[in-house]
């Protein structure tokens, strides 16, 4: 009853935007590539020293200076190219909404390019080599000489730094001679180097220490067995013998004595007093007080700590859940600094969380789901908080947070886990309840048939069995209620035959399930009746039209189907919301969920509908179908549009080879026509394989 012709106008706009973005991206890439190409064009691969020796035409100082400047320009251009390409890449990725990881990668490349700006390059070394003969002969002009001195200074600085690093490493390894040579050489190159001076001092100190060590031999004291103070042993002993610390030694500190006392009380079952004692000790100084603080951090020992943690976690998950539902409540906390894990698994979790956050900003979520969750007072699973509150009350019924814990227990309501430990037990015996999971039933079940279908295919049976007064009837072996009547086996078999014939001939149609599944249900019933079972029938009264706010909410938020006044159905599929009404026929109100349903097939089925797709577009229109061909007329946010879909391959019976259908669309953006993949046919072909 709903349009299956695809709207191409929004797609065209989307494709246009993408093309525009791709054009911008291509332009930026050309810019970046151009910069790189220019840099690479200017690059000289030959060694300038070789050229200097082998090419007499470069002897002239001016020529060498020019070449040195060219080399420096090439290096500068290359650095600019690296930075600009990183910048362009960052821009492209930001424009196309790439993942944050890719954005970070581009930003990292940009940062590396900027940081490497002042690094020495091979070109700089070659330029220095080219300028050196002229500088030694004093034949350089002022500008070139300044350039030479700047390059020479940079080279000297790099050499000094390398020497001092090497000297420091050598000293750490005990190689004082090598360290001293390196430091002196660095001082020769840069007499003002403070770092070289301090390294020389460190070398001297190390040399003196080595001399003393050599003179006096190994003075390391002999290994001594670990010992404990007498009070320590006595306290530990009395702890292990479960004694109360009444005669605590006076020579141990108050915190240690208190710790032992608190431990003994805790183990003796006086946990509230023990925790109170621990809190008192935690205020003191010393190692024992540190232990007490550490123990109070332990959720297994300190119920207050566990309660606080769980309250914090619950309230945070609740806020996230109202905003983005269960997925966000489950994954949103990954972004908290404490929860960030620097591992592959942590990275995957962050990626998953980010995707969930992105879904949160969907208009349907923000306009429908989030307000609905807020109104419904959405809550996350509270088992951990309930357990923490109960444990707190068990250990400290009069504690400072006892009222808080009781309030939380009231708010959380009954224990969810209790249903697992209570529901399946009857008189102490374990009896599993029926499953709530929806799965395809294989046992012969029930079939619902509309009165219209029965009157058309078995009018004499309808009269004979008195099947009137309801829009549909339920046929089955059991679970039909007290109003069910038994059918004679011959009549039951005849009826089932007629239904099967009607379905196979295409005169009847299946609702909610495909024809094959409904035929299979009819066949199983037939098998049971032939095996001796009795078929029973009960009238099926359609559900009363419901328009209550909660049911409308269930349809819009939970994706449940709702039938409202006027036989208008409301369906939520993912981010799409569709409201529609069939034209002609009895509708499908008489059908039951998860139950095969049979109705008369109309020559032309039609419907009117209103829809919105993820908040991006909306429209109202009408659709009609005839032998699988569909005509849809719609007025939407992108103007009026008509679509005609002709399942040519289906009509020719070649969908398994060529699952396509012809599509013609007329709208403000013009006329479009062409083949289109028949998704339904493709799915059916896959299933048959």
């Amino acid at each position: 009853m709903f349009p299956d012709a695809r709207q191409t106008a929004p797609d065209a706009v989307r494709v246009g935007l993408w093309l525009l973005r791709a054009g911008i991206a291509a332009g930026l890439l050309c810019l970046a590539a151009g910069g790189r190409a220019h840099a690479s064009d200017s690059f000289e691969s030959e060694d300038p020293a070789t050229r200097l020796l082998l090419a007499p035409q470069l002897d002239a100082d001016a020529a060498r200076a020019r070449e040195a400047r060219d080399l420096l320009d090439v290096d500068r251009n290359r650095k600019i190219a690296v930075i600009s390409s990183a910048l362009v890449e960052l821009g492209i990725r930001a424009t196309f909404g790439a993942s944050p990881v890719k954005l970070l990668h581009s930003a990292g490349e940009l940062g590396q390019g900027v940081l490497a700006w002042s690094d020495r390059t091979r070109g700089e070394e070659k330029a220095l080599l080219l300028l050196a003969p002229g500088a030694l002969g004093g034949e350089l002009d002022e500008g070139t000489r300044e350039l030479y001195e700047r390059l020479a200074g940079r080279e000297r600085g790099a050499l000094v730094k390398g020497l001092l690093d090497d000297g420091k490493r050598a000293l750490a390894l005990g190689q004082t001679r090598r360290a001293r040579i390196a430091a002196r050489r660095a001082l020769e190159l840069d007499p003002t180097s403070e770092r070289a001076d301090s390294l020389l001092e460190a070398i001297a100190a190390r040399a003196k220490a080595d001399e003393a060590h050599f003179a006096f031999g190994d003075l390391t004291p002999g290994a001594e067995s670990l010992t404990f103070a007498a009070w320590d042993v006595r306290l530990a002993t009395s702890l292990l013998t479960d004694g109360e610390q009444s005669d605590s030694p006076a020579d141990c500190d108050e915190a240690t004595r208190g710790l032992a006392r608190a431990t003994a009380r805790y183990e003796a079952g006086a946990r509230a007093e023990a925790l109170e004692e621990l809190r008192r000790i935690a205020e003191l100084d010393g190692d024992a007080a540190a232990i007490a603080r550490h123990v109070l951090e332990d959720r297994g020992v300190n119920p207050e700590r566990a309660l606080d943690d769980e309250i914090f976690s619950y309230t945070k998950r609740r806020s996230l859940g109202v905003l983005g539902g269960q997925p966000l409540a489950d994954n949103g906390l990954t972004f908290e600094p404490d929860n960030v894990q620097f591992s592959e698994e942590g990275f995957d979790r962050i990626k998953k969380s980010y995707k969930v956050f992105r879904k949160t900003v969907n208009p349907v979520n923000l306009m429908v789901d989030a307000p609905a969750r807020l109104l419904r007072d959405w809550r996350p699973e509270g088992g951990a908080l309930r357990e923490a509150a109960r444990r707190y009350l068990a250990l400290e019924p009069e504690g400072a947070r006892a009222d808080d814990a009781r309030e939380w227990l009231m708010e959380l309501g009954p224990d969810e886990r209790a249903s697992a430990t209570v529901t399946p037990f009857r008189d102490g015996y374990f009896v599993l309840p029926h499953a709530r999971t929806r799965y395809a039933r294989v046992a012969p079940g029930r079939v619902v048939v509309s009165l219209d279908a029965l009157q058309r295919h078995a009018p004499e049976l309808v009269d004979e069995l008195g099947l009137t007064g309801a829009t549909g009837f339920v046929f089955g072996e059991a679970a039909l209620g007290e109003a069910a009547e038994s059918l004679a086996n011959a009549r039951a078999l005849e009826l089932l035959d007629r239904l099967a014939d009607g379905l196979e001939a295409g005169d009847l149609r299946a609702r909610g399930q495909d024809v094959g599944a409904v035929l299979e249900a009819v066949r199983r019933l037939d098998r049971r009746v032939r095996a001796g079972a009795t078929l029973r029938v009960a009238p099926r009264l359609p559900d009363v039209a419901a328009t209550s706010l909660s049911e409308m909410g269930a349809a819009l938020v939970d994706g449940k189907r709702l039938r409202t006044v006027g036989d208008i159905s409301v369906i939520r599929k993912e981010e799409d919301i569709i409201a529609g009404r069939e034209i002609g026929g009895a509708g499908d109100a008489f059908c039951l969920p998860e139950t095969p349903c049979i109705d008369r097939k109309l020559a032309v089925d039609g419907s009117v509908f209103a829809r919105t797709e993820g908040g991006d577009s909306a429209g109202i229109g009408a659709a009609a179908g005839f032998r699988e061909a569909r005509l849809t007329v719609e007025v939407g946010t992108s103007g009026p549009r008509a679509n005609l879909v002709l399942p040519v391959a289906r009509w020719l019976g070649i969908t398994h080879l060529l699952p396509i259908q012809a599509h013609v669309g007329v709208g403000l953006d013009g006329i479009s026509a062409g083949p289109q993949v028949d998704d339904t046919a493709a799915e059916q072909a896959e299933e048959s394989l």
Partner: protein
Amino acid sequence: MRQIALVAPVLICATGCASLSPFGGSSTEAIADDSLTRVVAELKLHLRDDTYRYDRATTDDGRNVYAVALWKLDRLAGLRARPQENWENADYVIEFARGKALERLRRYGDAVAAFQRVGGSGSLLGDTAADRARLIESFALASARPAEPFANPEEERLFIQARIDLWRQLADDVHGTRYESLALEELEAWQVMRVDWFARGDRLSDAITACQSLIETNRESKLFGKHLLRLGDLYADSARRVELQANANLASLDPNRYEALVDQAFSAYELAAEDRRPALRREARTRIEALLAYHEGAGARVP
């Protein structure tokens, strides 16, 4: 970009408070382990934990507190490095505490040895250690491995049944003491072994009965959810067996029976999915999905 611009403030609002939380940071205070009192106190705080009903306590970094305590005690003993004949009171205290840690780690044989070393010393802890050794010795005997490999499966079943009876008796003996949780854990482990024995022997119906008995007698166990998963697996295996036999024409398939088994499997998994632990809930949901996928194919083959 639009999504990033929208997500960023949402993300900041939703998670920003975390850094302001007073519970965000944990204590990183360095604590010296060189005091016997402190090491023993840390161990002792968890000696009464009910490890049958609740998970074993762990340190901040997820390590078993008993294993950590034992490790610390072993290090102290190693630093003292005294031969047993030269032991002083401190060494006996360390050894006694080791015994306590070992018994909580269910290494009863090692615990008995530790208590016996202290018991024969005549130290302050001697009498207590001797009493403890006698008690734990019964645990050690009940958890001893069979002297030789089982000659046949029936011998193994009898052995398992004998262990169940023995541990049940021990659990009754230590009822109300700190050892009750240990005895119940052992009893539960052998009951699981019995279920496993039936399952290994292709006696799925008996395994289901044994598993139901396991669930009935361990309603308060921390492993209750796992037992439900086990029961769901047995029902699912039974349904698969029914379908396979029909597929091989070994027996005609009764759709009602097949569906009843599948239904019970789903039900057991659903109950397990209500467990408080997220990992177990995930496991249960995964099994529901797996069974749905299997049933989708199997349902088509039902006559």
